[in-house]
């Protein structure tokens, strides 16, 4: 296979990943590393570097689209960024001393969790409880427009959310993914932020988190232009197309199919990691 064919095949694969990722809400980044390592035999470190770059592209590219429908809370996002960037930097340093087979196994487990959590229906937990004192101190409580008027919400369990965000950052830095599933867990489940607000805020955070580890990956020589180029362009174009076809798509069916694919990839990553072929 020539470099030309290799580049085109990776670009097409990344385009499909980006499209499915955008339509299902799972993000394209989660399948890039398995795609590159399992199908193209690329070393997992190059794969993680390329995936990280594509995560930034989708996050920044989607920001404008998200702003139309969602309503992000910049204060919550920025405060939690302290946790995710510290996590991302520790994750990127940790990646250097972690055996690649261990990274493959952890990757598989995170993939399984993402597939599971994406199929759990989003439900807004009651938000009428009194606010957390940290949330008041940090001016987190806000409101967002709904068809029925302005809806206000209180933010709860700030320390738990902060801790979970650190974990999301570590995973992002270690595996080169956006860790959207863990960010949603922190904001929806722990901090009880309404779904519309948390999705948009999380999208903003994903790009900043990925940028924090991308710098370290670049210095380490993990970001190869020959691989990152088709991955970034493919995922970005795919995400743009995906966002456009989203209104007419059978999201639930697609999400289920994509989750099955992700679960299969997860098992193969874990299996190969245990066998030691990474």
């Amino acid at each position, binding site marked *: *296979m*020539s*470099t*030309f064919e290799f*580049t085109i095949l990776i670009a097409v694969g990344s385009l499909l990943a980006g499209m499915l990722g955008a339509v299902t809400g799972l993000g394209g980044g989660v399948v890039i590393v398995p795609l590159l390592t399992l199908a193209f*035999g*690329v*070393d997992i*470190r*190059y794969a993680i570097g390329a995936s990280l*770059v594509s995560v*930034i*592209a989708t*996050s*920044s*590219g989607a*920001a*404008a689209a998200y*702003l139309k429908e969602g*309503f992000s809370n*910049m*204060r919550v996002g*920025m405060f939690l*960024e*302290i946790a995710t*960037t510290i996590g*991302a*930097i520790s994750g*990127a340093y940790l990646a250097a001393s972690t055996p690649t087979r261990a990274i493959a196994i952890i990757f598989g487990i995170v993939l399984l969790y993402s597939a599971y959590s994406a199929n759990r229906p989003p439900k807004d937990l009651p938000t009428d409880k009194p606010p957390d004192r940290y949330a008041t101190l940090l*001016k987190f409580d*806000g*409101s*967002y427009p709904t068809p029925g008027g*302005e809806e*206000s919400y209180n933010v709860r369990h700030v320390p738990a959310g902060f801790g979970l965000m650190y974990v999301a950052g570590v995973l992002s830095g270690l595996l080169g993914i956006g860790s959207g599933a863990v960010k949603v867990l922190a904001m929806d489940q722990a901090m009880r932020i309404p779904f519309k607000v948390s999705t948009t805020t999380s999208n*903003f955070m994903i*790009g*900043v988190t*990925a*940028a*924090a*580890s*991308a*710098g*370290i990956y*670049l*210095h*380490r*020589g*993990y*970001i*190869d*232009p*020959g691989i*990152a*180029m*088709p991955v*970034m*362009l493919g995922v*970005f174009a795919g995400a743009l197309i995906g966002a456009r076809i989203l209104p007419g798509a059978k999201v639930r069916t697609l999400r289920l199919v994509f989750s099955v694919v992700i679960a299969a990839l997860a098992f193969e990553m874990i299996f190969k990691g245990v066998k030691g072929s990474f």
Partner: protein
Amino acid sequence: MAQSQAWGDKRFEVMMGRLLRFGVIFAAAWVLAGGIHYLVQFGGATPDYKVFRGEPGGLRHPREIFHEAIQLDARALIQLGLLLLIATPVARVAFSVIGFALEKDWMYVVITLIVLALLVFSLSSS
């Protein structure tokens, strides 16, 4: 009070969203141009990414990448585009410092500066 603050946030964010989108589209176009140059030059070679070697020094640090890209090295040109892409969220955080300062929210100016410092640390450390 809450409403006027929310309105200010929203308007500032729409501006940020546009900035991010411009940055990412510009970076993508740059990477695409570098990619075409790269494929014209190396398209016929055999790729080998099975063994990790790490990138050469010229493709690891912003200053060296810039230096090699000026000489129209195809791989360095792509790398410069990727560097621009990595810079877009950093720019958004930097502009948020201004946004919070305009709202005179000094606590969040400090919080945002901490995030910015962490990003700069990551990009400049070796």
